[in-house]
């Protein structure tokens, strides 16, 4: 293996720095029409009338689709979960504010926007609630879907009540994380082209071309082969493009109804509610420990918001099942139904919000015990999975703690809050553990050796910023024994071998494994045909007649998943500066050490982790989809009101890659890195804020008013 691990610069770099990379909205098709959504401003009720008479009289306006005149879809609009329930103008019900209630279509974008503005909606509002507190009493347990599999809502071991009774110190607290919105920089976009009455081509900004294909095929009652979905570049996603939402069906319907190709991009305000977000959570933690720090009880109960019409469960309490050695553990998930759009997976779903609560509680326990927070975690290091009572496929958490602490200078921390100042600022240091499952789902790939000795490898995964074009090429080149220049990796097309969703840190591990297997198979076949070394591939193919030699393979998890727990681990360390007068918090340094199996490309891996860590800053200090409770809608619905970390918010971010070998997790030995950088980051920052100020903030984001 020589390419794997190389910090090869991105192969898609040139296309991206020259503007040549084509995202969904940029596919040009002759005769294109433009669609713009009109959304509801009531949070619940019925649409009585959509008055589009003035809009349709405007020049260039081709149609305004409404619940009254939109085509009836011949098939169901929803498939198996996690496919989402969507609103495609099939009835007059309004389930949440900002739900699509009409679509204006015109021959130019400007005319479509103008028409959309002229549409008048008359609705009958019903009583709504968007406040978690109001419905908490009606919370119900619900199983989760995470990493592509179903997980029970509740799990327990031992007797938590007894563990708490036996404890010398206890922490019983409630933590809260706000609703957040993904806000990838590229708004969701769909281009729909009907090639024939029963053949559809779609360019979509998606994390899963096969889900888009299935949803459209189902709704329009066509064989799935008749729907061709293409997505060569996706401008960020973070979970928000994991399921095809309403606009995908609406664009295809609009194209059908006006008889022209139609493109639609959500406007930024449309992205608040209609395409998911991280749900509001309320989490109760109860920890008990002996004087020496050993845990006697760990209870994590999470309630998270979902919509009235669909289910998403934020898996906040999942880590509690696997992270710390403790004889008495309980972990519970409840959902609370509100009149909101359905939340969905958002970068490190469950782990990001859950680790804020769990790791804050541990920090509080460390204070109660007068123990160093890192020491407390080491005391409770789990040598095996505490609930499943089985080994980890690999675990290098101790090395992460040690390496992170050393680089950060943890020994300089003062245990006493408000003990350090710098240039008038209070200085605080905090830490937290990070963990994220090493997910692996079935994936297929093909590899083809051409007569000129170059190889083409394909799998229908996506490039969403993850570096797929680059790392898959590295994996393939190594397996074939070719230099990377001789290998091309292609993706993002529903006619390619099926890949799992590009999300949940699944795809590099899964598709990487499929690519590895298929390239090994191709190499073997070529060797059987007489090849000896990569230099002879061309000759072998030519001798066999010149037609490309092709192999297809599938990688899939097996029984090992029942015998081992598979987690990537990390340790986050934060230093914050807090203005004692203004309560402003700056994250001066964030150091994270992570062990996630084999690193395919250190440059890309570090970049993923850095991005994830900065999401932790956003979560800790800025991000909040603020609801107006009376109106039932998100009012922070643009990038001025919804703050994501900007360049000036970031100071020093240092991800460290800790070496780890895992021969069990998947054939590629990879645990995905897309999410783990966010895990624990908000808690490390909140813990540092406590260390700086003596104020324990249990509800995110930490805004200055909390510290005054």
């Amino acid at each position, binding site marked *: 293996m020589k390419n794997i691990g190389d910090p090869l610069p991105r192969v898609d*770099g040139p296309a991206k720095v*020259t*503007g040549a990379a084509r995202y969904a909205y940029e596919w040009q098709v002759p005769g294109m029409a433009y669609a713009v959504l009109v959304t509801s401003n009531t949070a619940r009720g019925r649409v009585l009338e959509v008055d589009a008479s003035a809009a349709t009289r405007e020049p260039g306006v081709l149609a305004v689709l409404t619940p009254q005149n939109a085509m009836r879809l011949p098939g169901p609009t929803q498939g198996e979960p996690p496919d989402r329930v969507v609103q495609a103008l099939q009835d007059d019900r309004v389930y949440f504010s900002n739900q699509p209630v009409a679509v204006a279509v015109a021959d130019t974008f400007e005319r479509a926007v103008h028409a959309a503005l002229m549409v008048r909606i008359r609705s009958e509002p019903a009583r709504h609630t968007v406040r978690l507190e109001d419905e908490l009493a009606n919370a119900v347990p619900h199983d989760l879907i995470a990493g592509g599999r179903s997980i029970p809502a509740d799990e327990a071991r031992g007797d938590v009540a007894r563990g708490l009774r036996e404890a010398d110190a206890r922490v019983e607290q409630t933590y809260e994380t706000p609703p957040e919105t993904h*806000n*990838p920089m590229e708004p969701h976009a769909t281009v729909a082209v009907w090639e024939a009455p029963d053949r559809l081509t779609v360019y979509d900004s998606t994390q899963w071309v096969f889900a888009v294909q299935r949803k459209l095929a189902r709704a329009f009652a066509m064989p799935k082969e008749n729907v061709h979905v293409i997505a060569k570049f996706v401008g960020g996603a973070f979970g928000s493009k994991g399921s095809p939402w309403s606009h995908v069906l609406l664009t295809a319907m609009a194209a059908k109804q006006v008889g022209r190709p139609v493109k639609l991009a959500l406007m930024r305000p449309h992205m608040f509610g209609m395409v998911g977000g991280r749900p509001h959570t309320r989490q109760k933690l109860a920890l008990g420990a002996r004087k020496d720090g050993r845990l006697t009880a760990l209870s994590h109960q999470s309630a998270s918001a979902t919509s009235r019409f669909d289910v998403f469960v934020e898996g906040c309490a999942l880590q509690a099942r696997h992270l710390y050695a403790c004889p008495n553990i309980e972990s519970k998930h409840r959902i609370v139904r509100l009149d909101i759009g359905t939340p969905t997976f958002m970068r490190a779903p469950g782990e990001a919000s859950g680790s804020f609560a769990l790791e804050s509680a541990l920090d509080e326990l460390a204070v109660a015990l007068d123990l160093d927070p890192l020491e407390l975690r080491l005391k409770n290091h789990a040598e095996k999975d505490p609930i499943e009572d089985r080994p980890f496929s690999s675990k290098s958490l101790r090395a992460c703690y040690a390496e992170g602490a050393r680089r950060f200078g943890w020994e300089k921390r003062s245990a006493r809050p408000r003990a350090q100042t710098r240039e008038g600022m209070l200085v605080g240091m905090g830490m937290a553990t990070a963990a994220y499952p090493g997910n692996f789902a079935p994936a297929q790939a093909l590899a083809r050796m051409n007569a000129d000795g170059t190889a083409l490898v394909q799998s229908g995964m996506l*490039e969403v*910023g993850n570096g797929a074009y680059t790392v898959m090429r590295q994996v393939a080149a190594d397996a074939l024994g070719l230099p990377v220049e001789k290998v091309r990796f292609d993706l993002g097309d529903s006619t390619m071998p099926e890949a799992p969703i590009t999300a949940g840190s699944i795809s590099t591990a899964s598709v990487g494994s499929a690519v590895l297997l298929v390239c090994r198979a191709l190499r073997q076949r070529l060797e059987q045909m007489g090849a000896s070394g990569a230099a002879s591939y061309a000759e072998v193919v030519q001798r066999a007649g010149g037609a490309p030699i092709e192999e297809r393979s599938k990688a899939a998890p097996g029984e090992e998943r029942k015998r081992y727990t598979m987690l990537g681990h990390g340790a986050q360390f934060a230093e914050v500066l807090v203005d004692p007068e203004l309560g402003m918090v700056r994250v001066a340094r964030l150091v994270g050490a992570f062990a996630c199996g084999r690193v395919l490309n250190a*440059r890309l891996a570090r970049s993923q982790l850095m991005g994830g860590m900065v999401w932790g800053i956003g979560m800790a200090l800025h991000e909040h989809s603020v609801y107006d409770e009376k109106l039932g809608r998100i009012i922070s619905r643009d990038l001025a009101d919804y703050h994501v970390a900007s360049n000036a918010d970031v100071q020093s971010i240092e991800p460290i890659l800790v070496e780890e070998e895992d021969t069990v997790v998947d054939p590629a030995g990879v645990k995905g890195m897309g999410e783990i950088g966010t895990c624990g980051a908000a808690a490390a920052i909140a813990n540092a804020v406590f260390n700086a100020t003596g104020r324990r903030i249990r509800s995110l984001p930490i805004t200055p008013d909390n510290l005054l």
Partner: protein
Amino acid sequence: MTSVTVTVNGASKTHQVEPRLLLVHYLRETLSLTGTHVGCDTGQCGACTVLLDGAAVKSCSLFAVQADGRSVTTIEGLAKDGKMHAMQDAFWQEHGLQCGFCTPGMILSACEILERNPRASEAEIRTGLEGNLCRCTGYHNIVKAVQAAAQKAR
């Protein structure tokens, strides 16, 4: 309809446009220069940044007619004779990008920062790029890329 004549990436273009046509859509839809992206429609993300007479502007916040008689540089016009601009190369080499959606706007803003001050400090670069949001990279490598390009220019 109004007539506009704009020099785009060195070539003069004349079109009849609606007065309400935004510069960004003129570039993307009329001229098919889709390297300029739309991220927010509301002047906050910077994905649509282009150079107007050398100054970085958000092309979603200008009408095409406001560019009449002026000169626009988009990401497609930065490379000269098939050779990437030093800033483009630096973004690639320093890995100042992931999904790439913010990249064209980021690069053009960065060009303007160095144009004004070739010795911009890290803090000046960070503040200068505050109007360009990136949701993927965490900004660190973006700053490194701008510094590398500055270094190379000296």
